């Protein structure tokens, strides 16, 4: 499903990561500064690695050797940012529909997502008066509504209070079951990884430090 090989030097970190996975939900687990978000940004195209190759569903998104770099807008990924990044001038409904309209796709998944994420009462609201949990649910819905090939989740529960975390986590579980979409989760919390991932890749200081299935991970961290 995804093959990734990246070498990239940041000011304080050298990333050298190689993995391929067929798992539906892969978690990149590690402390802050391990290079997790850099990997998501490279897949989304927001960062161009100095060297490497990224293949998604058989399509080469990036290959430094042959000079291939598919434009961000054409990569068809759904990115849920840690800070949501909802568009403040648009309603929740318009935020949700933004990607489908930009990609000129039918919005057939819209009603289903609204139901799964319990967004119905929020649709006509502006994003400014949403709670943290509501904002992340909208961000997840917005990323999924355009029917991406992969969902990139960058610490989607960080900053939420316990109740909101549980709520969003339950929604993510339900989405995983219902939509069966491939996803890559970045997290530094073991409970999130255990709840969502099928395979776990541990990262430390820009390198893969461990790789295991969720059972093995759960035995170590549960």
């Amino acid at each position, binding site marked *: 499903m995804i093959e990734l090989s990246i070498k990239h030097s940041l000011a304080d970190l050298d990333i050298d990561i190689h993995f391929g996975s067929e798992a539906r939900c892969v978690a990149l687990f590690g402390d802050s500064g391990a290079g997790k978000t850099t990997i998501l940004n490279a897949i989304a195209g927001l960062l161009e690695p100095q060297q490497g190759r990224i293949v998604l569903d058989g399509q080469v998104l990036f290959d430094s050797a042959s000079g291939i770099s598919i434009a961000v807008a054409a990569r068809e990924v759904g990115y849920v940012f840690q800070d949501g990044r909802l568009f403040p001038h648009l309603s929740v409904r318009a935020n949700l529909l933004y990607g489908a309209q930009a990609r000129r796709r039918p919005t057939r998944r819209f009603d289903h997502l609204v139901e799964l994420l319990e967004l119905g009462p929020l649709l006509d609201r*502006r994003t400014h008066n949403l709670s943290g949990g509501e904002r992340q649910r909208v961000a997840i819905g917005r990323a999924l509504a355009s029917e991406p090939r992969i969902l990139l989740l960058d610490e989607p529960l960080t900053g939420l209070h316990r109740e909101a975390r549980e709520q969003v986590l339950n929604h993510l579980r339900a989405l995983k079951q219902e939509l069966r979409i491939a996803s890559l989760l970045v997290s530094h919390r073991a409970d999130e990884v255990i709840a969502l991932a099928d395979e776990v890749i541990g990262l430390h200081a820009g390198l893969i430090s461990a790789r295991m299935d969720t059972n093995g991970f759960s035995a170590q961290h549960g």
Partner: protein
Amino acid sequence: MSALSPAEWEALALSLRVATLSVVVSLPFALGLAWMLSRWRFPGRLLVEASMFLPLTLPPVVTGYALLVLFGRHGWIGEWLAEIGIVFAFRWTGAVLAAAVMGFPLLVLSIRVAFDNLDRRLERAAETLGASAWRRFVTIVLPLSMRGIIAGSVLAFARAFGEFGATITFVSSIPGETRTLPIAIYEMMSLSGGDAGVQRLTLVALAVAFAATIAAAILGGALWGRRRDD
């Protein structure tokens, strides 16, 4: 104080038309230039920026003279434009050009600050959702920069409405064609018995200035309220 005379109405109407059109015509160029200065790094950028500010720093009469040299009937560009039927010199369209040039730096500056202050991460988020550069500009950048665009437009309108030096140098004072409100005031001041007219037009200028400022405050306030809530 008596009502405005037909000639005074004519000067007021011309000034409003010239000021409005100068903003409308220059806005697309200002948006383009502000975007270029905010987002692009290119050789000669400083020169472009310095040239843009010239109308603010030069005496207006010099700007008017430069317009005459460039866009006069026998000017470098004017001669060529005249062949295709576009004439600015001594026409109301020339007054629009002069007003647009004088207000342009204020318009660009205000829009550029708005572009600079925009949260670029929102544009990146839109990009991951499949939005093209043009779509991001129209759906994210423009709406979120609207306060700066409106503020710049009002400033440019006010500057254009009060424009005198460049206009009289470039298009002179032709009643009904190029005699704008400031030029009419200036001419009345040199006429015996023109005091009443000067006072009337001064009051009108004050009213327009207040109206523009209040309109800007209301529009900005409405947008500001929305943004603050966001």
